[in-house]
């Protein structure tokens, strides 16, 4: 087990769960971000979803310890074994590789790439969009027209072109490229929200009280403008997992025999009717993961909106 996988997968999701739980006891007047965490803890659905994501990440990180087979081990006696066969809980594929073991290993790439690249794209998108929306005018026009140009290139084509030119296909490259091509939509939404919030009276009032620009943007405008970005980010995680599957199929991205949830599905292509389990199990995992992140995203969005607190 390489410790880096634990660091990448388990620590961030564990931190989320710990933060959510720990903040329950904190002071109530510590600012909007703290309150968001507090309210998340009261939201059982998103807490459960966070635990689920943590569990997936832990299993993926510890895959070499937990899995019964190596991901590329071919059991010649059990080609196309059905789920619940005596030696392979979720069956095997055409080459006799254990599906459960491959899913556990595949989760490392899929989850890490998804979480890290969405973190990257959300950060870039929020900063870019907030800057454009806050400063407006010529800065805004230049930034947004540049963005339009970038958006007009299909993401898959852009990725293929860069991969082909770069010739470098490590996980790091995958995270960077996915992250740096995934922020356009988020950026537009944040920009729209920020530029709508900037002339709002509370933003003017904050300036009238002497708050510097950065404080007005960070403390007054962003908390009112982030909801769509959070929803977009939680959807983005699912997109990245599926996009990575598509890239693998085209020979880019995660290279076989290293498994990812996406390329496990791709491997099963064409044999769905007799060997349904080869696509159904990874598919179900992707759906469950996306669902869990969406629940966390929804919970976050609600928690950020104090208008849902009861009137006194």
């Amino acid at each position, binding site marked *: 087990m390489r410790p880096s996988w634990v660091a990448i997968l388990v620590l961030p999701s564990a931190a989320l769960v710990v933060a959510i739980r720990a903040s329950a006891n904190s002071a109530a007047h510590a600012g909007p971000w703290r309150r968001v965490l507090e309210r998340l803890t009261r939201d059982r659905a998103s807490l459960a979803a966070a635990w689920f994501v943590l569990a997936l990440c832990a299993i993926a990180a510890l895959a070499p310890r937990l899995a019964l087979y190596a991901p590329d081990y071919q059991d010649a006696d059990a080609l196309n074994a059905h789920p619940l066969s005596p030696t392979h809980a979720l069956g095997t594929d055409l080459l006799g590789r254990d599906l459960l073991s491959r899913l556990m290993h595949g989760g490392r790439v899929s989850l890490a790439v998804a979480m890290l690249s969405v973190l990257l794209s959300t950060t870039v998108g929020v900063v870019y969009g907030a800057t454009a929306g806050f400063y407006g*005018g010529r800065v805004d026009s230049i930034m947004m027209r540049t963005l339009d140009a970038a958006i007009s290139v299909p993401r898959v084509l852009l990725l293929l072109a860069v991969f082909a030119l770069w010739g470098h296909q490590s996980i790091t490259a995958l995270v960077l490229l996915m992250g740096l091509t995934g922020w356009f939509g988020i950026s537009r939404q944040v920009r729209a929200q920020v530029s709508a919030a900037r002339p709002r009276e*509370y933003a003017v009032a904050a*300036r009238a*009280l002497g*708050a510097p620009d950065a404080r007005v943007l960070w*403390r007054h405008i962003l908390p009112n403008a982030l909801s769509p970005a959070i929803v977009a980010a939680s959807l983005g995680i699912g997109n990245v997992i599926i996009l990575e599957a598509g890239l693998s199929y085209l020979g880019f991205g995660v290279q076989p025999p290293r498994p990812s949830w996406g390329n496990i599905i791709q491997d099963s292509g064409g044999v769905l009717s007799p060997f349904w389990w080869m696509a159904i199990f990874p598919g179900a995992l992707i759906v469950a993961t996306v669902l869990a992140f969406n629940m966390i995203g929804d919970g976050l969005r609600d928690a950020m909106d*104090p208008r849902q607190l009861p009137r006194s």
Partner: protein
Amino acid sequence: MTPPTTPLLSIADLRTYFRTDEGIARAVDGVSFHIGARETVGLVGESGCGKSVTSLSILRLITRPGRIEEGSRIEFDGRDLMALPDGEMRRIRGNRISMIFQEPMSALNPVFTVGDQIAEVARVHDGASRRDAWARAVEMMRVTGIADPADRAHQYPHQLSGGMRQRVMIAMALVMSPALLIADEPTTALDVTIQAQILELLAELQGRVGMAILLITHDLGVIAEVASRVIVMYAGEVVEEAPVGELFAAAHHPYTEGLLAAMPRLGRERDRLAVIPGTVPPPTRWPAGCRFHDRCPYAWQRCVEEHPPIYRIGPAHVSRCHLAEEPERRVQRAPPERE
């Protein structure tokens, strides 16, 4: 009410223009006035006459497409605000000059507790610690007459009543004991009974803090209660300025006359309130000559052709109306034909 020797705030030839698709909107167009220390000055006029833009200009809060034009002068406490670097200007906002807004629900940030928002002022200006700033916020809430301030501080704006929200705004504005408070329609969004309470509170705090107040309103009743001097604005200009008693007793400008006639008064039998015909024209197309001439019951040829200067009517009374030179023209003619 003679002007004090060194006014706290003096504004000269303030022009704030907005460059819009319809042309240049001259929202504030050559406004001059002054406010003395501890004085309460009322600024009145209809919506769209430039009152709010004037107040935002004082704090230099005008943003694109608006701009304070070259040559406008704003002096506060002996300093030229137009020449201050942004950082210095920021230290004046909320500290030496504060502002409260018409609609506290939208001027308060919905995602902060009110205590947090009041505390922020002390944190920004004094670098106070979280704990100190919070204590000061609770104290300010107590000063502004909010019951159970320690509990209320933890609530969000939508959880408070309109009157309480305005008290919170006032608390925020007064944390740093400013020398000047700009109150932009502070009572317009409130019930009449609450209005009176808020005005009383402002008057009381003015004595305690020793600040001047620029009270912006379209409600002459409010002015009568608290202001000592009144400035009337129309179409981006000051059209009349007088001590409050003199204005109510002997308004000179026909626009002021119209505003006074439009006030509801007890004990006066009348089926309908008088109204000033028409509306404020759009700021991209102020009429030539006197800007009020097409709504004025006395207007004659001179008013269409010649833009009236400020005429001195009395020791502290000025009016931008040609009637100052031709008082015999103050005869009501038939109301102007309107579509």
